[in-house]
């Protein structure tokens, strides 16, 4: 009798180990609800996508990190979004204007906007993202200095504008201008191995998505929640900073923010997250 007990206990222990392994590495099957509004964290992949389903990085994080994002009061990134709101209303530059002078209430004028960038900039003949759009506005309409990368209020204002698209599914129109060829270029970069570690974006975020890389749970590397609040940085992290960080981690030299390479990558990676809700500011590890 006693023997049976020991054996069944052992079997139970083994079963636990068996279950705990894969369950730990899988993305969770949960709904993200932010302030009562349900977000799309699983979407059917667009045609030509390597995955059947695109998954938000939220599904890969721990239960505590996930919880922080569900309430804008507990989301630490919202403090910086508030700073962004102050910048929106602040008059700067020789024209004596603020963002609000032309665009009024961001809740209306910027509603849903952030889900559809990068767009095609016909003047510059290259893609334009929200950071560059802000700089363009500052130079051309406000007579103010453009922000240096990640400086001034660039991250905060970008996050404030993107927050107005909370819940809106990401979709970009590749038929604008030459955007399709930038998408192709971004795709090439995504699959190009770089650095001493000889890794491409796809090595981690496609081939090994869902697995553990040391202590980190690899997600699909979606950018629907950027600028993202990272617990590691205790602050907002912009998408180009994240790209540079990832490339640096392959031990390669990394391109400048807003360079042709990274703009192409942003176009392609944004497309890879088509259909996911904008979660800015997402909370990640």
């Amino acid at each position, binding site marked *: 009798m006693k023997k049976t007990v020991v054996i069944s206990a052992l079997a139970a222990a083994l079963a636990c180990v068996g279950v705990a392994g894969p369950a730990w590495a899988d993305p969770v099957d949960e709904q993200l609800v932010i302030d009562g509004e349900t977000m799309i964290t699983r979407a059917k992949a667009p045609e030509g996508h390597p995955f059947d389903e695109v998954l938000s990085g939220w599904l890969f994080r721990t239960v505590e990190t996930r919880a922080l994002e569900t309430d804008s*009061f507990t989301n*630490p990134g919202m*403090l910086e979004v508030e*700073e962004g709101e102050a910048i929106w209303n602040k008059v700067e530059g020789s024209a004596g204007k603020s963002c609000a002078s032309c665009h009024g209430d961001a809740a209306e004028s910027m509603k849903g906007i952030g889900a559809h960038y990068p767009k095609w900039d016909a003047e510059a003949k290259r893609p334009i993202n929200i950071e560059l759009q802000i700089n363009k506005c500052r130079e051309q309409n406000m007579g103010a200095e453009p922000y240096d990368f990640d400086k001034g209020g660039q991250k905060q204002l970008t996050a404030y504008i993107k927050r107005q698209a909370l819940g809106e599914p990401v979709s970009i129109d590749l038929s604008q201008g030459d955007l399709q060829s930038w998408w192709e270029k971004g795709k090439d970069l995504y699959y190009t191995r770089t650095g001493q570690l000889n890794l491409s974006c796809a090595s981690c975020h496609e081939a090994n998505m869902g697995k553990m890389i040391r202590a980190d749970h690899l997600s699909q590397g979606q950018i629907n929640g950027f600028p993202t609040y990272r617990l590691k940085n205790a602050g907002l992290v912009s998408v180009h900073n994240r790209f540079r960080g990832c490339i640096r981690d392959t031990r390669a030299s990394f391109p400048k923010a807003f360079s042709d390479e990274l703009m192409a990558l942003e176009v392609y990676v944004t497309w890879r997250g088509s259909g996911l809700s904008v979660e800015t500011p997402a909370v990640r590890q």
Partner: protein
Amino acid sequence: MAAPKPRVKVPKTASAGEVITIKTLISHNMESGQRKDKDGNPIPRQIINKFTCEFNGQKVFECDLDPAISANPFFEFSAKVNESGTFKFTWVDDDGSVYSSENQIEVK
């Protein structure tokens, strides 16, 4: 540092005897006094050292804060409400400033 700004989340209505959840957050650097600036001089300590919550003049929650507490301190606690009234929250800064917020709650 921008002026510290208190934020409070209290339900607007509750039923008598209900236990409600209160969340508070104040934006504050919480400078610990342990750091040095780039010339090597110590940066003086400036933190929120006390937080209190009163309901209709009666103390509900109080705590002292110490230098190891991180920036933008967040408190979440519960309280039982039997009558309509006002929650008053105060944060006391090392420099003597007091930041406060008052929130009404109606018991139905």
